[in-house]
Structures are given as C-alpha cells and as structure tokens.
C-alpha cells in the first residue's frame, strides 16, 4: 500500500526540513521524502496537501482514557477517536484507571484496546507504585516488557521523597522516564483552585503555587541525585518552570510539558463557578501564565500535552467543591497552540517540536516524531488558516467537560494519518484543498 502526501509544506524539525516536500509512505512506513521535482511513484494513492502543513504525527504525552473501569466517561476507542480528530496520532495513557495500570495484565489490555480501535497509537504509562499508593514500587520491568513507555502516579503524586528516589533509581534501570504531577499534598490538600486573589474573592480553598514549586524542586534535586529521566507533567507555575530551567542548565535529564488551558486561561475564569474551569493543577494567575508563555518561547518547555480528563456531565454538574478535576482537551489543543503562533509566541517549527519531535524523544518512542525513512507513517496535516468553532456537543469524546465550547479558532488539524492509514479527515477537506488550489492558481 502506497500513500503519497503531495504538494504540502513539510515541517519536520528532526530532518531540518521546512519547505515544500512530498512524503511517500509504503506499507505503514516512510519510504521517502521527495523534492517537488523528484519523480513521483505512479501507483500510489495521492493525498493532495496543497496549501497545508505536513508534520510528523503529533504525540500527546498525557491523556486519561478511563478504560478500564470508568467507561461511562471515556473508552480507549472514544478517546482515540477524539485524539485523531484533534490531530494526535499517538496518545500516552495515564495509569489511574480502575484497576490501576500497575501490572502487565492491565498494560496489555490497554494496548489491545488501542490496537482494536485502529485509530491513534495508544501507549500506556505504568504506575510508579502499586495502586499508586506511594508505598511499594510497581513492577516496572514487567510492565515495560508489556509495553509501557513511562511511569507515573499522576493524580496521586508520590508523597515521600524517599519513595520517589527509589522509583527514579529503579526506573533508570529500565530507561523509563518518571513522570510526576508535582504537588506537595500538605500544601494543596482540599484546594479546588489556584490560591490567590480570586480564590479569596470566591471563597474557594486554594492550592498555592508553592505546592507545585516545592515538589518540582524536589524532583529536580532527586534527578540530580539519581541521574534518572524525570518528566514534569503539566507544569503551571513560574517556580516549577524555573526549577526545570535550572535543571537543564545543570545538564540533568529533566523535561516538562504544559497543557493548553494553562497558557490560555487564568484563575479569573473560575469567577462564575463553572466546574469546567476546575482542573488540577488549577488555572493560575496572570504572572504564572506569563512565565509559561516565556517557557514556550525560550524552549524551557519541551512539550504540549492535553491532560485530557473526561468526566460525565452529572459529575461536573455538582457544586464546585464536589465536582472532579479535569477537562477534555484532545480536540482543542492544536487550535490553542495555533493561538500561540498567531500571538507570535512560537513559530510553526516550534509548534511541531512541542507536539511531535520532543514528545517522541521524551518517551523514547522509536520511529515516531520524525518522517525520516523507515519511521512510522504517522502524519498530522494542518491548515493554518482554518477558521473553525469547537462544538463540545459534537466532540468524539464521550464527555463534554470543556471551558472551550463554542470557541473560535484559526488553524487546526484537517487530516490525521497513522501508519499510512488516514484515520481522520476534516468533513470539508475537499472544499478546503479545492480552495487552496484555486488560490494558488490565482496567485500564479
């Protein structure tokens, strides 16, 4: 099976390519990247990418797919459908399911469900500790053999520094990155939003930035001690970012990701007590948001990850204190990343680095995040001019918990290809490319 993605504008930082190229995928793998005047194979199916950006498939390092155990919120199949509709060819599934992914049986189940859905690649993340209880190490070696790509106790961060040290030392032996949701529980317990002027106004219990910052510093110190690969999940504070910046200066193997809602919204968004503004880490004050934008600009932030966290509408319809943390994010992330491009915070090359090149390296996903020969034929195709509105009611996710319903975007994914198979196309792709062709013809 041959697929030629023709006439597009290829951005692949791993190859140093930023220009017009055609990509040939044969039997699921990249066979060649062709210059415009190279001869094209005559027997390939052609995907016309005129006026579109062609990028190595986007990889989301942080999603909650809820299966097994909470299929009323999301299943691996619905989550993967939302992923490809949002331009993601791969998603990395956090282990806080029911049962928790702390053993190879659950790992294999997640992988099988992912394969059955035949949409995005689903890479499981294993628990750091059994039951994510923070007491005993989970069987990282066995889970790695079964297919995990990292370990994390996301949602219930390892509270003890001593335990975290052991986890890092042990994970290092399997070359597994340790992903931490940085939060010093004794500072954040009971909090439902960022602690600051708005939490005082709203009378809601706050989580101080210091809770994240203290734990981020701890993890960086432990990364130095253990030489482990440490990845800080969805950082949201200036202090955590500074910790990462310093760790990188010291040459430690520390990386970090940021979630789109954290650079898009501030804690003021909680004003109306909309539970779709309740997430953990919480939306922060403008100073922290400014620091994140700076981190995106200067490269301290390595990856964009959604922290896609579906919840049933009945759960989110509770009082603010009672509602669970989290929002869905797979279908809005790329649109929100384009906002950064339009605001001049990042350019398109950096966008691809943040969504594909770097995530593949952070979790050592072989043959992903690059369209070099023999890499997987995972491709995200974007229209930087696409004018679209996100409708939560039409989300592929099972859940609707988003603060971005009815939000208008400029730029977004129009097709998603996984191992050479087109798994998502924008419903109006034909009109979009026809328009681009006409525009191009006129300009000539």
């Amino acid at each position, binding site marked *: 099976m041959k697929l030629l993605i023709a006439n597009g504008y290829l951005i692949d930082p791993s190859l140093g390519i930023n220009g017009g190229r055609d990509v040939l995928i044969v039997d699921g793998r990249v066979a060649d990247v062709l210059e415009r005047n190279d001869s094209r194979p005559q027997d390939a199916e052609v995907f016309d990418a005129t006026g579109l950006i062609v990028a190595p498939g986007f990889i989301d390092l942080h999603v909650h797919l809820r299966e097994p155990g909470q299929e009323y919120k999301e299943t691996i199949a619905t989550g993967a459908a939302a992923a490809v509709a949002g331009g993601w060819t791969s998603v990395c599934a956090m282990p806080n399911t029911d049962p928790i992914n702390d053993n190879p049986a659950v790992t294999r189940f997640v992988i099988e469900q992912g394969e059955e859905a035949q949409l995005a690649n689903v890479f499981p993340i294993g628990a750091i500790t059994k039951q994510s209880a923070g007491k005993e190490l989970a069987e990282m070696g066995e889970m790695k053999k079964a297919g995990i790509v990292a370990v994390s106790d996301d949602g219930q961060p390892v509270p003890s520094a001593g335990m975290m040290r052991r986890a890092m030392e042990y994970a290092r032996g399997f070359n597994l990155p340790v992903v931490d949701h940085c939060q010093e529980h004794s500072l954040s317990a009971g909090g439902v939003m960022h602690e600051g002027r708005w939490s005082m106004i709203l*009378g809601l219990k706050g989580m101080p930035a210091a809770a994240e910052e203290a734990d981020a510093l701890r993890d960086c110190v432990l990364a130095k001690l253990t030489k482990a690969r440490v990845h800080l999940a969805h950082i949201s504070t200036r202090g955590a970012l500074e910790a990462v910046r310093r760790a990188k200066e010291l040459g430690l193997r520390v990386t970090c990701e940021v979630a789109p809602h954290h650079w898009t919204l501030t804690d003021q968004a909680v004003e109306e007590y909309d539970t779709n503004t309740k997430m953990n880490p919480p939306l922060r004050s403008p100073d922290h948001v400014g620091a994140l934008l700076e981190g995106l600009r200067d490269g301290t932030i390595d990856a964009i990850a959604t922290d896609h966290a579906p919840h049933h509408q*009945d759960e989110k319809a509770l*009082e*603010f*204190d009672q509602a669970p943390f989290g929002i869905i994010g797979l279908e809005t992330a790329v649109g929100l990343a384009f906002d950064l491009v339009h605001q001049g915070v990042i350019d398109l090359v950096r966008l691809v680095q943040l969504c594909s090149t770097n995530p593949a390296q952070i979790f050592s996903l072989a043959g992903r995040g690059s369209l070099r020969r023999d890499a997987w034929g995972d491709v995200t195709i974007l229209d930087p001019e696409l004018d679209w509105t996100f409708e939560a009611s039409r989300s592929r996710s099972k859940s609707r918990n988003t603060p971005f319903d009815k939000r208008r975007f400029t730029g977004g994914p129009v097709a998603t290809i996984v191992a050479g198979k087109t798994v998502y196309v924008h419903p109006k792709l034909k009109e979009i490319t026809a328009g681009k062709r006409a525009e191009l013809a006129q300009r000539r």
Partner: protein
Amino acid sequence: MMQPVFNRKHLLGIRELEVGEINHLLDTAETFRDVSRREIKKVPALRGRTVINLFFEPSTRTRTSFEIAAKRLSADAVNISVANSSVSKGETLLDTARNLEAMAPDCIVIRHSMAGAPQHLAKICSAPIVNAGDGAHEHPTQALLDALTIREHKKHIKGLNVAIIGDILHSRVARSNIYLLTKLGAKVRIAGPGTLVPAEFAELVEQGVRLEQRIEDAVTGVDVIMILRLQRERQDTAFFPSMREYAVHYGLHPEHLALAHPEAIVMHPGPINRGIEISSEIADGSRSLILDQVSNGVAVRMAVLYLLAGGGRSEVEEVIGPKSNGKRKHRETRG
C-alpha cells in the same frame, strides 16, 4: 413613578452590586423596619407568594430571620433543612432545585456550606435566588443588615473607619462587608492571626484593605469594630494553638475599646462565643449593637424578599401603609 433602582433577579453577593442598588436596598429596609415596630406586624406585600428557605447548613438565626421576614410580608414560607453531610450521597443540589422549581416558588433562599452553590442554583432556576450564606464566599443580607445598623447609629457610612477582626480567611461575612463598606466609602482594616488573614485581602477591592497584625493597631481610632465569630467548624486544620491563646491575643477586650473612637460601636454577626472573640463586658455593654443587628436583619430580609419576589408591582408605601415623616424624609434626601 421613579424607576426601580434594584432590578436584579437574584441577590447572590455584594461584590457585583452598584452603590445605587445597595442604597436602594438599605432605604427599602429602613421603610420595612417600621412594620416590625407595629402592633400588627404584617403587610400584604407578598400575599399568595411562596418563599422557600433551603438550608443545607444548620442555622437558627438567619433561617428564623428569613422566615419572619417572609411572614411579615404575608408570604407563605416553607423551611427545608437538609441534613448537613458534606458528602451527601442523596439527591444532588441540581435535582433538589429542579424539584423545588416544579412547585413554582416565588423565591428560594439558600444557605450552603459550599461557595458558589447559590450561583449554581441561579443558573438552573427561574425563581429568584437569595444567598443566605455560601461557604466562605458571601453573606449579602448580613452585610446589608450591618450597614443598616451602622447607618442608623452613625447616619452615614462614607468616611468611617471600620475594623474587622478575626477569622477573615473563612468568613463570608468579612468578604460581603468589605465589598459593601468600601463601595459606600468606608475604609476597612482587618486583623487576626496570620494564618487567618491572607495577604491577598489587601487587594480584594480596588480601594484596598489595610492589614494589621495586632488587634490594638486595627482598632485604634476606628468608628466601627466588627468581631467575627470564630467558626471552628469551618477550620479543617488548626490555625492557632489554643482557644485560650486566641482569646488573649485576638479577643476584643475593654482596653481595646479605649483605643477606638470615643463613640465607636461594636458589632458581631452572632452567635457569639463569649470570652473568646469578644468579652462579655463588651458584648453586653452600651457600645454593642448585636441585638440591633438582629432586628435590622428582619427588615433587610423583608426588603430583599419584597424586591425580588414581588417588587415592582407597587410602591413600598402602597403596600405598607402610611409612614412616619422621618423615614419619608430620608428617602427624599437620597432622591
């Protein structure tokens, strides 16, 4: 006919109110105060209307005050007390609201331990919602009755110095009062243990709030001292070492009163913890307006219910009958 100055559907907090709206509420309350002083304490203003008092948190004073207010307006008042378990596994607030809504109430008064619960209700109910206290967020009728009490004794609020002392962090009374008093031109200082007086309060309002470490500094020269109830039930962890230490360092004692303006008044939202946040000499003394606050509470709640559940049908004067000149004059001066 004058345009009504308060046409909000709900009373959820003070923060969003305009100065004109606050004054209109206070003026209306002043008019209704008269009714409670009559032999027949009832006017037909809300005859045939139903007011539901939905209390998710134990409260005697506020619930009774709303109930009496509704009854003096001839409304049918229904009290619903929902057993207060924070993780109630029964009906959700949403379902409770939908069921009540189906019975077509004209107003729902809600008290809830969680901030934002009244806002939540307001999004789904067509009946007007009155916030009777939500978590650490707001308690608008308390701030209004406090303002009415201050106005009664000081004639004005603009330019007054007010000290609010105690557990500011968990206090909805402090928040609503800070908004209301600063909107009406008073200067507010707050004091209490460092664990209960967050620095963020300094910038809670545009006008700013003065933070003091010591109660002595907070009360010096002030016209009004508001003591907050120490709400042990709202504190999930220990914020100070002992009640004894609190009483010594943050309780209001007669020597503090000597530092305040000679005609300073003392207020407390009740119920008081005698000998803890306020000494009995002060609570029962001549400067204390604690019982005036309670009386004014009924008047304020009558005004709120009237304006939300039945207001606009007719002028206040038409429903409550002839009134004394003094009050009439006051209304006119506000024009």
